[in-house]
């Protein structure tokens, strides 16, 4: 079994598996910087959603 499959076998949660697959594929392509890019993309997406909701709320409250 390859490294990726061995690690995947130990992960239970589907979201964790999906994220790890993205991390591993990015690692094969760009090494550590690739992993950093994938993780930062996840973080930025959450932050972006947060900011969008925050703006909606601010608009509702009249700025």
């Amino acid at each position, binding site marked *: 079994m390859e490294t990726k499959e061995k690690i995947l076998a130990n992960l239970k949660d589907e979201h964790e598996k999906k994220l790890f697959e993205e991390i591993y594929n990015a690692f094969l392509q760009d090494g550590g910087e690739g992993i950093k890019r994938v993780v930062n993309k996840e973080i930025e997406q*959450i932050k972006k959603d947060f900011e969008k909701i925050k703006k909606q*709320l601010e608009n509702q409250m009249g700025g």
Partner: protein
Amino acid sequence: MQLKNIEITGFRGFKEKKEFNLSAPVVILFGENGSGKSSLLNAIEWCFFGNKIIGKETGIRERIDWEVKNRNSSECIVKVEIEENGENYTLERTWVSKTKEKFSIISSDGNVLEYDEANKKLNALLKYFTFKDFMSSVYQHQEVIRFMLTQEPKDRNEAIDRLLGLSEYRNIIEGIDLAKIKPDELEQELNSLAQQIKAKVQFWQEQILALENELSQKGISYEKISDSGINRMCAEIKKELINFSNVLNINLSDVFSNISSDDANKFIEIGKKEITRLRSEMPDVKKQKQLYEERMEIEKNLSDYHILKSDCEESRKRFKEFVEKYGSLEQLKNKKEEAGRNIESKKQERKNISQLGSIIRDALDYLKSEVVTDKNKCPVCGSKTDNLVGHLEKEYSERFEEGLKKLDDEIKNLQEQIKDTEKLIDEAETLKKTYDAAEKSFNKLQATLRKKFNLTERDDIGDCLKAKEDEINRLEEELKKGVEKKQAHLTEIENKFTMVEKLSGLIGLKKKREDAREVEKTNEWLNLRHKAEELKKLKDILQNIVAQVKKTSQKDAQDKIDSIRVKVSENFKSLTQHPQITELQIEVEEDKRTGGNNYSFKDNQSKYVTPILSQGQLNSLALSVFLSIAETAISPFSFLIFDDPSQSLGKEEKEKLTDLLNTIAEKKNLIISTMDGELFESAEKRIKKQKTIYEFKSWNPHHGPEVIKRG
């Protein structure tokens, strides 16, 4: 898969094209450090694996920022000839950039495969053997042994990880660590937002109280006011303004006429603008403006008239006073001419006296001379006088010298008189000019005003203009009362707008305050909290992934160690003999500091052996691990590469190493690179298989290495 040949151009230490036959069972590369031996070995792995052999991900620190292409070469091409199942293939890799290469495979029948097809064929030839596998079971890199010799547990563990092909796990963990996640960041932002909302509620509360207080003081009831109440008030104000605009006889604007009183804020904004427009467009106000402009014009004309009149009178008065005091300009000019004539007369008189005095002087000089014997006899008339010289000198002094002095004083006085008169003439001329100019301006203004206001020569301009000004004042006063009454009505309507505005503002503020108080119950707020939790969860997920990577790495390491444990011990004993180590045990556990794998080498009494091993024995330990993996791995390559394997080994250990290599050479071809003369000699003698030796020397950047082939 057998290696047959390699052709290198512009790769690493090779500038010019060089070709090496690698088909012999044993190929030895011998030469000093930096002569290009490792470049040849690197060229083999680059041709198979391309730019995967560069960078941090390889687990070799030296490979970070590694330059593939030789700086002095215009191209970089490596061709490796291999034999697989009786077929010959030429693999050709060309460097394009750090991230791009060109790869092709040429079969012995001349068929050329390129791009994806070439890579697919290569994978089939490699039987999906990876670069990681190649590094751990085919190519013994000199850096691994160097790391083993450092005695630093972290570096040694990293080196063994590499030997076992487990660098990937370590690199994944490091990559995840690179992304610095702050799990509480959004939670903190949410708390900060809650504080801001609280502060806003407080601010609005203060504004509400201030407004309520203001409305109470004005006697306005605000407790039961609602949006519909505000709309009704707006409709009433609109009606009132329409009625009043009819009184004023002014049409209301389309914008105001069409605005609905349901949108209170818009209605108030436009209504107030409409009032401002009505204030300025009332007919009486326009008339007021016209009268005001006329009055301003008359006041300006009157002011100009009085100023010029006064200037004219003042300059005339000053000129008159001058004439009375110093005489007219003509008189002053006559006076100047008379003084001039007097000076000429005095000058003639002085000339005459001066000529007579000269004769007497000459006579005196003659009498005083030695030629005259009778000093009392007059040389002019011949009469005799006692002390004639004395008398003549006294007369000369009294009559001529004093007379001349008197005349000079008189001339000087007359000249002073002329200068003073000239000054007075200048002053008189200036006063005259000023007076003439003032009179001209005044006359011009009078003519203009008479024409403008239709006045005759007999009319007094000042009086007429004053009368007109008084008339305008009277008209303005009459208009003022009517305008004030209408403006007061508009102000009354405007105040109603302001009151509605305040009531509407009060409702708005109360609504905002209530919304803010209830914000934590809204879906948006719950979604924000969910996102903050999501970030925390992402951190937990990443931590779990790291934990599982570590766990898998440890399990993998354990399995690999189990599979080579006996072989490592055997190889180690073949390479070195240590009286305290009869059996070598290898254990894997978690490194508490790094979370990575920690390898312990123990003797049969479970005592750690690395602290008592020499550098040579540590080298032997690394070689034992590599050889054990190389021997047990299922590899498509039927050769092994050794790069500087004898670091820190003693002569006896080197001989044991060559004996071990001789045994391995029975099963696999070997490529051995060394700078060690003892190992080279030992290998030449003790390895029995056919050998090709390449001696490397005199490397320089312009040509690369000089290579001599033997055997």
